[in-house]
């Protein structure tokens, strides 16, 4: 008399309110779709939380909400993004990412087939980043109360002994290193927005950076002050934040900043500055000048740091300006963007 668990009809079915109401339908969706995609021993235990062993030391925790539109974009989808983004925020602390948790908020009517593709991408992204999605939660809201799917991903990681990357650590004279070309993710997303629609071969750079970080830490050790991934708001926002927190300024060389021609062209078309455009697979590292060369070499030796560049230095500045010598020979400030109407890029 045991009800045989019929598989969710992934090909034709879609999420309805019953999948969020704590009943059997929800449990079937979770085990039939998410556990399948993330499959690991922790999820299999079916608890509302998962336990793991840690050695004594310093851990980091982070969380990000992912609301990118469209959900599928050139170079990835919200699922891979939701792993990469959180893994990267952990990695930016110099930490080794360990475990993730994911909260899904789903609009009724969302197709199982899309959900499966997204969950599979998450599973694959997690696997290749060496992390496990050990716990999660699923909510379903009425049609018109969400935009298909939102994912919030939290994560924890282990910080190597003695490391404490933080935005206030930059010192005057430090070098600013960037791991590759800027603006790829934002341009890839914008190319798919109905009112902007343009064709480009640019794809999102969305990728997990923890391995690159590990190589950099090996090369630069405590000479690395801090790292950050220039996501929303782009390099401009990231450096302005660091300048504020560390109470200094930055002086950049525009010529040194790598930007793909397609990204530059799309930005010209839209009236944007690539320095304000989001990245999901790049990092900025502020490093002491004596290790900058070694760290840059380590970056360039890694596939994700092939285009890495030393783009400037930290300077004393009680206005905390980020300045840039333009390729043309002048100088200007690199400011935050001012609430522009950019699409939802992460």
């Amino acid at each position, binding site marked *: 008399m045991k009800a045989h668990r019929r598989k969710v009809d992934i090909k034709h079915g879609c999420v309805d309110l019953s999948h969020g109401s704590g009943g059997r339908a929800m449990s079937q969706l979770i085990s039939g779709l998410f556990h399948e995609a993330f499959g690991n021993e922790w999820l299999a235990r079916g608890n509302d939380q998962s336990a793991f062993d840690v050695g004594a030391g310093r851990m980091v925790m982070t969380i990000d909400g992912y609301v990118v539109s469209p959900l599928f974009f050139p170079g990835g989808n919200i699922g891979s993004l939701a792993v990469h983004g959180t893994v990267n925020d952990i990695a930016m602390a110099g930490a080794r990412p360990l475990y993730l948790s994911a909260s899904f908020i789903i609009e009724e009517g969302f197709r199982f087939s899309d959900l499966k593709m997204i969950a599979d991408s998450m599973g694959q992204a997690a696997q290749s980043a060496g992390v496990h999605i050990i716990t999660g939660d699923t909510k379903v809201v009425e049609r018109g109360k969400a935009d298909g799917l939102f994912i919030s991903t939290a994560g924890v990681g282990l910080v190597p002994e003695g490391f404490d990357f933080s935005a206030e650590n930059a010192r005057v004279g430090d070098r600013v290193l960037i791991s590759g070309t800027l603006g790829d993710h934002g341009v890839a997303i914008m190319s798919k927005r109905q009112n902007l629609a343009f064709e480009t071969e640019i794809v999102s750079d969305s990728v997990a950076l923890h391995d690159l970080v590990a190589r950099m830490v090996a090369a630069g050790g405590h000479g690395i002050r801090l790292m950050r991934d220039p996501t929303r708001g782009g390099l401009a926002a990231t450096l302005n934040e660091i300048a504020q927190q560390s109470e200094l300024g930055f002086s950049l060389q525009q010529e040194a900043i790598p930007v793909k021609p397609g990204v530059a062209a799309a930005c010209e078309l839209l009236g944007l500055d690539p320095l304000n455009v989001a990245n999901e697979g790049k990092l900025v590292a502020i490093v002491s000048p004596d290790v900058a060369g070694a760290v840059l070499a380590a970056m360039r030796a890694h596939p994700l740091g092939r285009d890495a560049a030393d783009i400037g230095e930290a300077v004393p500045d009680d206005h905390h300006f980020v300045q840039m010598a333009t390729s043309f020979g002048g100088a*200007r400030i690199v400011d935050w963007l001012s609430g522009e109407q950019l699409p939802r890029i992460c």
Partner: protein
Amino acid sequence: MKYADEFRDKAIGLGLARAIRSEADPQRPYRFMEFCGGHTHAISRYGLEDMLPKNVRMIHGPGCPVCVLPAGRIDMAIRLAERPEVILCVYGDLMRVPGSQGASLLKAKARGADVRMVYSTVDAIRIAEESPEHEIVFFAIGFETTTPPTAVMIRHAEKKQLENFSVFCNHVLTPPAMQKILESPDIRSIGRAEIDGFVGPAHVSIVIGTGPYEVFAEEFGKSVVISGFEPLDMMQAILMLVRQVNEHRSEVENQYSRAVTRGGNPRAKEEVCDIFELRDAFEWRGLGLVPHSGLKLKQTYARFDAEICFSMSELRVADNPACECGAILRGVKKPVDCELFGTVCTPETPMGSCMVSSEGACAAHWTYGRFRDRQRKRAS
């Protein structure tokens, strides 16, 4: 980017800078107004100010259609967007422009008004076709460059017999505003700018040609160079202006000969003439009422005129009295001369028109150039 990258060459730029420095007479000031916000933006973006000698000074003019839009027109657009049946289509630049009491289309949208950013008038037509149950209003702004696309769209709407489409027209004209700056009757209160020449906007002249500027050379004795927007274009134009001043010439020269002719684009001009006619006067933020400076739809196209369709009443809002935009747009003052600059007034919370778009004089200085104020302070 062909026709862009080669005009951003640093070596040639440094050469032109040296030429300007060598030809400019250190004994006299050269005060050139770049009328157009696009030029203001280019100057800031490439840091051109650093490349000019101190006595060659660029004065940022009122040529940003976003900045000069009076708060009352924004309030009118907000009222329109708040109507439940209306979808207001706007160029993204307009979203943050302040109306009265801190209102903006961005905030109106957050509070429920249906405001859609469009990249092109083509999108507004598409939205109208997709939403027959709504009234689609296109919030048209811009100088002569941007007017032909609006005209084309109205012609399309007519051809497609769209009955749910109209235009809230705020198109303005360059020459009357330049004239207003030169002959402003309220000189006493604001002061008159000392201007030796104009950098004219090439994109406007692509449409209207260089002809309409001849009056400034002939009647007002000002040097005019129609210039492109790449940094080399601007450096060359400045050099050409320095030479005109040195040689006591006041002519209209065309630096952007690769796209600008004396007569402009006849098709574009015809489209505009077919559909629009001059308003008696139009209000500009910072400049006040400027005679014959705005366009409206001709009587025959009244059914596409949102001001008529929705019986929109004219709203007037006094500008913030502390705001020095009027003087700045005339070249009499600089952004830092305004006591609100950078404290109360920033691009996040613009108090005046010049802080609104990145092409505004105050916004451009804040976003790209304010580090120079400190250098100046240190120097002094």
